[in-house]
């Protein structure tokens, strides 16, 4: 089948979802009210609460949620064939992610723009709030370990990207200074910054840099992982305006440029979907598609991380409540379109099926490297960009996303450690540097503990990461459902996705538990048990809350009659 057809069907379906389903959800379920005084107006302070233009807010929401994860997940999941991944991304975006994101913004907006964690405490209970914190910590831990592994793999496989990837940090540092000290306007800075970044990308292929295969006792991959954590630790200690903010901004610009390039190249080239629609001949060791597909693709179909962004910053800046539909739902559609691009690149970007099979030789292989290779093949044939340059471009895009997430992730982990330090009155843990070292240490333990000394096994955690992310989404959906029930509105539009997620994540965890046990991988076995316990508690919490609500409702109707 031609990729253009896949692209049009996918984007068309998501567009219809936005036009019809999100309208239904916004008007009939959430009943968004343009006259509602949003927290951004009620508590306007020029700092946290600022009414913001909905397009700007959409850009913020979209670029915060779309990162490396919606590329990696789908690019791994196409091992089961492109159709299952395609269906889950499209239907997930329409019925799960869109409702979840818009719902999280709405719920937070109706509750003084509280964060999702605080809201869980208020709406569901204290226990649920503690669970929320634990799940967040697990997500952060895994995301840092996985992303470090992914970046290291990319830098080893595509040495041409080394210069632009590290050079981008200097570009960001300079941009940060220029803007903070108000030397020149932002538009000029943006244009200059993008030109500088693409100039670096142009230089990259001329000067590839590879580390020696063994640096002392460490492999090249392991060395990169350690260097990356060193970088992330320092970056997370800097003030946000210095590096994180300009980096994030450049990433946002890059995201739009990259998406336009890939989509334009697909339309111009019209490649065939080389990978099988349903892969009946999966490599040995590939787990069962159901339930693993639904945790391998988390971001791109539904992801709990979005709830954190929605409650943390987006809802505080909502100008009108009705904007929640565009910002939340369409933000999710934006991410879905990135996941769709990843699917197409990883399945249509190969000349023959033998090439594809060689890349997808075992589960966890392929992934983002397949996205880079496939995407570069399509860009080369569609737009005529040289293949080395196209590869560098896509590698840089993926690495910069992942690198920024590591910076943010480590920062948040540090806050959590510091908070624990003050809760349990451990003085040294409240300090910035020990807390950062603790965060880095736990991540390194995970990156190396999962896959041995060469750090290549970090991707084994990927499905576990997806699972934890889905659990977070489940908690947010639970909050939205409870609020809806209390308001006497239909709950099935959030309850059904919630139950589906819980069933699939628990099934995936149990299945993986068996796999880790058979393989004798006790490290991951333990980690799996921790996540499984969290999942079971969330399921109990969910059941108890629904029961309580049902009881309240019955009592209420008794009293009325």
């Amino acid at each position: 089948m031609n990729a253009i057809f896949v692209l049009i069907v996918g984007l068309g379906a998501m567009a219809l979802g936005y036009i019809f389903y999100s309208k239904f959800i916004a008007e009939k379920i959430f009943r968004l009210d343009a006259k509602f005084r949003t927290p951004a107006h009620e508590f306007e302070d020029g700092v946290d609460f600022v009414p913001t233009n909905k397009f700007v807010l959409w850009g913020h929401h979209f670029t915060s949620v779309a990162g490396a994860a919606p590329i990696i997940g789908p690019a791994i999941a196409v091992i089961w064939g492109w159709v299952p991944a395609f269906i889950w991304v499209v239907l997930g975006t329409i019925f799960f992610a869109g409702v979840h994101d818009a719902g999280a913004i709405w719920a937070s907006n109706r509750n003084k723009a509280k964060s999702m964690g605080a809201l869980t405490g208020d709406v569901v209970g204290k226990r649920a709030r503690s669970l929320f914190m634990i799940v967040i910590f697990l997500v952060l831990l895994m995301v840092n370990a996985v992303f470090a592994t992914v970046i290291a793999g990319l830098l080893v496989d595509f040495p041409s990207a080394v210069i632009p990837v590290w050079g981008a940090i200097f570009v960001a540092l300079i941009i940060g200074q220029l803007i903070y000290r108000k030397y020149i306007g932002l538009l000029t800075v943006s244009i200059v910054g993008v030109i500088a970044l693409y100039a670096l990308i142009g230089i990259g292929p001329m000067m590839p840099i590879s580390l020696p295969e063994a640096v002392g006792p460490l492999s090249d991959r392991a060395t990169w992982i350690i260097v990356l954590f060193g970088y992330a630790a320092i970056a997370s200690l800097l003030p946000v305006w210095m590096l994180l903010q300009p980096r994030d901004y450049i990433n946002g610009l890059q995201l739009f440029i990259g998406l336009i390039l890939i989509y334009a190249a697909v339309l111009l080239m019209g490649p065939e979907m080389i990978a099988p629609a349903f892969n009946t001949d999966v490599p040995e060791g590939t787990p069962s598609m159901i339930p693993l597909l639904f945790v391998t693709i988390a971001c791109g179909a539904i992801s709990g991380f979005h709830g954190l962004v929605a409650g943390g910053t987006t809802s505080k800046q909502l100008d009108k409540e009705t904007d929640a539909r565009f910002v939340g739902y369409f933000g999710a559609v934006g991410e879905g379109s990135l996941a769709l691009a990843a699917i197409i690149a990883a399945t249509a970007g190969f000349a023959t099926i033998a090439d594809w099979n060689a890349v997808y030789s075992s589960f966890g292989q392929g992934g983002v490297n397949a996205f880079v290779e496939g995407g570069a093949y399509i860009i080369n044939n569609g737009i005529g960009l040289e293949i080395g340059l196209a590869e560098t471009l896509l590698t840089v895009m993926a690495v910069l996303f992942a690198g920024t997430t590591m910076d943010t992730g480590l920062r948040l982990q540090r806050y959590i450690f510091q908070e624990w330090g003050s809760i349990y009155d451990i003085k040294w843990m409240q300090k910035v540097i020990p807390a950062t070292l603790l965060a880095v240490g736990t991540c390194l333990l995970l990156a190396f503990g999962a896959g041995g000394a060469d750090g290549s096994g970090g991707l084994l955690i990927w499905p576990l990461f997806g699972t934890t992310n889905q659990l977070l989404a489940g908690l947010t959906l639970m909050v939205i459902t409870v609020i809806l029930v209390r308001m006497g509105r239909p709950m099935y539009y959030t309850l059904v996705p919630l139950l589906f997620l819980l069933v699939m994540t628990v099934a995936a965890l149990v299945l993986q538990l068996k796999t880790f046990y058979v393989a004798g991988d006790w490290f991951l076995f333990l980690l799996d048990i921790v996540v499984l316990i969290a999942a079971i508690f969330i399921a109990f919490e969910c059941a108890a809350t629904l029961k309580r609500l049902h009881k309240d409702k019955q009592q209420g109707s008794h009293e009325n009659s």
Partner: protein
Amino acid sequence: MKIHKLSAIKDWWHKANHFAEEAYNAPYRAAVARAKREQDDLFMLLVFSEMMGVPNPASYYTLELQPLLLERFHDWHVRMGMEKSPLDHFKCC
């Protein structure tokens, strides 16, 4: 005609610049402001340190700044967890 076109472009540029600035600042406004406030709080402590019995070698210079910072004094001591002014001879509320 030419001037008209030029001002239209200038207008567009300003609008786009404003838009970009919003996009740049929206996600981080709070974090940056909080960091700045922390710095200001430390500065406040330095300026008023002598009055609280903390020796300050630069008090000769910081004394001059006290009236300028008076406006922010109330917010500061409230934020620091002290309902009333902590200084005996320096009432504020």
